């Protein structure tokens, strides 16, 4: 028990220090990857098992970004997007302070950039979200935040943050509920 606790505490530390610990080479985009949190010593010790992340939900034909962006000049200026991506609006995500290049890497658009300057692939976007949402990131790693499928005692599939939260409008979209149960009077 106490060991678990200390390891849980270790996770906290690890999260705080995540930017400093670069993981190995990120695999190419669009391909499903098995990822072992081997670099996270604390996570390994606490027994967070290897987990599987499905590919991120890109809009059709949008990835790789470098197809278009390779030749373009980087324009770091804050502006209203007009020619492309005008559908992307930031809502409920600190829109006043936020700008594309806070997260997207200006030099190589196929990867994301953490505040520390470290580059992460889109499959590891949880590091990006985890920068600000640290406690949720820790919960997510432990499997408490977010949907999980797979085997309860074996291999598990995690979802990336972006599977449920559109990074530009992260609030969970309301769903239509399924029909309510039949009232007892009407059960015939």
């Amino acid at each position, binding site marked *: 028990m106490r060991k*678990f606790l200390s390891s849980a505490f270790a996770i906290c530390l690890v999260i705080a220090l995540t930017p400093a610990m670069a993981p190995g080479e990120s695999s190419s985009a669009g391909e499903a990857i098995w990822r072992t949190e081997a670099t996270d010593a604390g996570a390994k010790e606490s027994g967070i098992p290897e987990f599987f992340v499905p590919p991120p939900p890109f809009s059709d034909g949008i990835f790789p970004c470098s197809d278009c962006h390779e030749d373009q000049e980087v324009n770091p200026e804050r502006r209203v997007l007009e020619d492309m991506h005008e559908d992307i609006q930031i809502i409920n995500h600190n829109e006043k302070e936020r700008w594309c290049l806070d997260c997207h890497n200006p030099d190589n658009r196929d990867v994301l950039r953490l505040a520390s300057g470290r580059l992460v692939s889109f499959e590891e976007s949880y590091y990006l979200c985890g920068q600000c949402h640290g406690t949720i990131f820790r919960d997510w790693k432990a499997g408490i935040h977010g949907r999980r499928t797979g085997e309860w005692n074996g291999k598990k599939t995690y979802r990336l943050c972006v599977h449920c939260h559109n990074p530009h409008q992260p609030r969970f979209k309301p769903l239509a*509920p399924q029909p*309510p*149960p039949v009232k007892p009077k009407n059960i015939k």
Partner: protein
Amino acid sequence: MTKYGKNTVRETKVSRRDLLKGAALSAAAAALPAADAKASVWEAFFQRHFQELNAREMEKVISRLEMEYAEKYGKEIKISTTKPLPGVLFGYGLDISRCIGCRRCVYACVEENNQSRDPQIHWITVLRFKKGDKWVSDMESADKYYNPDKVPEPGYFYMPTQCQQCENPPCVKVCPTQATWSEDDGIVVVDYNWCIGCRYCMAACPYGARHFNWMKPGLPAEEINTKTHYLGNRPRYSGVVEKCTFCIQRTRNEKGPYPACVEICPVGARKFGNLLDPKSEIRYCIENKRIFRLKEDLNTHPKFFYFFAT
């Protein structure tokens, strides 16, 4: 272990019971024209309690049931009788701060567990509470028939309930025929062939988790889930009680999948795992989150933990 250990004690009684049974059977056989009485009807009538069946008898019972089901639904239905895994005690977590009340779990459960479609039986009930109201123990303020266009609705929160798989289950205590019992992995199960339908357990359950087949369950053959467990989701009979079993047919495997409701939940509010495994996510919930259990004051010690991940 104890539950199965009991069988050996009971074996001694069996001979006498067999005698009585034999006497009754022969009397019945004599009373009825042999041509009319189908053997399986009598076999079903005199089928013994699940825990008293030895391996050979179990096999016979299962093959008979599979035959019956094949006849009834025109489909091959596999019935497993997997025993509890050693060192496993199932626990369930539900994140109230995430649930949006979309009822996906309710219908996933219906499909997975072959519940009756008409008349409707739902093992999961999603309750809607008003925020700022007097909290969930005041159940009267709950509404389970809410039907808005979109969920979550502002100003409401949702609390799904189902069998809480109590450590100290009042339903098991009251059953007059021991037709329902708590397995070693903590799942409370019902032997649908032993239940007499007195509904005492329904009166005793503080969570409204038990459901009665008021008539022959309306289960369309094409929608049937053929992977079943004897104590779980095999098709039920009229006049017996049924309940959530944490998808015993799925989870009772070393590398079994999550229960259907956990898999379907779009917001990931549902968590499931082994309470005896310190690395499981349910243990993480209990040890790191504020949790509560429904109707804690009744000392039923549910293994169903509601928690707040926020």
